[in-house]
C-alpha cells in the first residue's frame, strides 16, 4: 500500500484536490445559507473562502498550488459575464424604460462610492499608493486593477479592496434596502451591481431575477463611469 506521503505528492501536484475542495467549500457555504433561511449575513462566498483559507493554512499549501486547481472555477467568470446578456435580453423592455433613472444613479452613485471611500481613508491618514488603490474599489476586478495601475495605485491591493467591497455589498444590501423600504427591484439591483460589482450581482440573482438583471447592467455601466470619474475626482485630493 502506498504511504500517505506518496498520495499527498500526487494530490498536491494535480488540480483535482483543490478544485474539489473549492466546490465542496461552496456547497457547505450554500447549505448553511439555505439552512439559515437565506439570511444575508450567512454569505456562501465568505464561508467558502474562510473554510479554504483554513484548509490551505493547515496543509501548508501555497495560493499558487491552490489556484492551479481553482483556476477552472475562476475561468468561468468570463463566460458567466457574457451570459448576463440573457436575463438582460429577457427583460429588455423593462431595462429600456429605466434608462434615465439608471443614468442619474450612474452619476451620483460612483461619485459617492469614490468620494466617501477616499474621504474617510484620507481623514484617517491614509496617503499615497494605498489611498489611490482604494478609488476604483466598486468596479469589477479586471477594470479596477487597470484603473489603479493608471493612477499610480497597486493593482494587487485594489483587487483585495474590490473583493472586500463585493462581500460587504452582498451582506449589507438586503437588510439595508429592506430597512429603507425600497420595493422597486430595478432600483435595488442597479444600486447593488453599481456598488459591489459581480459579487453584489450574484447576490441580487439569489434574491430576484429583475434585481439580478439590473445589477448586471449596473456592474457593466459602472466599469465605464468609474474609469472616467476616478481621474477627475482624484484632482480634488
Amino acid at each position, binding site marked *: 500500500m502506498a504511504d500517505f506521503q506518496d498520495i499527498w505528492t500526487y494530490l498536491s501536484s494535480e488540480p483535482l484536490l483543490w478544485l474539489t475542495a473549492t466546490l465542496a467549500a*461552496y456547497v457547505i457555504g450554500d447549505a448553511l445559507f439555505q439552512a439559515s433561511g437565506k439570511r444575508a449575513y450567512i454569505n*456562501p*462566498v465568505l464561508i*467558502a473562502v474562510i473554510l*479554504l*483559507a483554513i484548509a490551505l493554512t493547515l496543509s501548508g499549501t501555497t495560493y499558487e498550488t*491552490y489556484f492551479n486547481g*481553482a483556476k477552472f*472555477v*475562476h475561468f*468561468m467568470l*468570463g463566460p*458567466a459575464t*457574457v*451570459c*448576463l*446578456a*440573457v436575463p438582460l435580453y*429577457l427583460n429588455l423592455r*423593462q431595462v429600456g424604460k*429605466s434608462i434615465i*433613472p*439608471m443614468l*442619474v*444613479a450612474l*452619476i451620483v*452613485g460612483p461619485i459617492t*462610492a469614490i468620494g*466617501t471611500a477616499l474621504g*474617510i*481613508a484620507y481623514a*484617517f491618514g491614509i496617503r499615497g499608493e494605498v489611498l489611490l488603490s*482604494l478609488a476604483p*474599489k466598486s468596479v469589477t*476586478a479586471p*477594470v479596477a486593477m487597470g484603473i489603479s495601475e493608471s493612477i499610480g495605485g497597486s493593482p494587487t*491591493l485594489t*483587487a*483585495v*479592496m474590490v*473583493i*472586500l467591497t*463585493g462581500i*460587504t*455589498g*452582498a451582506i*449589507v444590501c438586503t437588510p439595508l*434596502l429592506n430597512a*429603507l423600504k425600497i*420595493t*422597486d427591484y430595478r*432600483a435595488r439591483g442597479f444600486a447593488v451591481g453599481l*456598488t459591489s460589482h*459581480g*459579487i453584489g450581482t*450574484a447576490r441580487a440573482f*439569489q434574491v430576484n431575477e429583475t434585481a439580478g438583471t439590473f445589477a*448586471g447592467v449596473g456592474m*457593466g455601466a459602472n*466599469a465605464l463611469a468609474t474609469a472616467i470619474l476616478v481621474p477627475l475626482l482624484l484632482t480634488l485630493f
Partner: protein
Amino acid sequence: MISHLTVILGLQLLGEVITRALGLPLPGPVLGMVFFLVLLVLRPAFADAIKSTAQGLLAHLSLLFVPAGVGVVGHIKTLGSDVGVILLAIIISTIAAIVVSVYAFTLTAKLMGQSNG
C-alpha cells in the same frame, strides 16, 4: 450544449481582442455581453435555445468568486496597520453608495411618473 458554450466563449474572445486592440476601459467579457445581447436581439429564436445554458452558468455565479476571495486572505496582511481604516472606509462607502444610488433611481423614476417595475 457544446455549440452554445462555443458561442459564449467565442463572444468573450471577440470582446477580449477588441478591448485590447482599441484600448477600451472595459473588460473583454463585458463587451462580449454587449455582443451577445445584439445577437439575441437579432436572432430571438436563438435566445430560447441558449437560455438554459446561460441560466445554468448564472445560477451559481457566487461560486465563481471563491478562488479570488481565497487570494484576498493571503494579501490582507499587505494592508498592514491600515487594515482597520480601509475596512471602515469600504463598509461606510459601500452603504452610502447603495443608499444614494437607490434613491437616485427611485426618485427619478417617480419624477418620470413610473411605478415599481
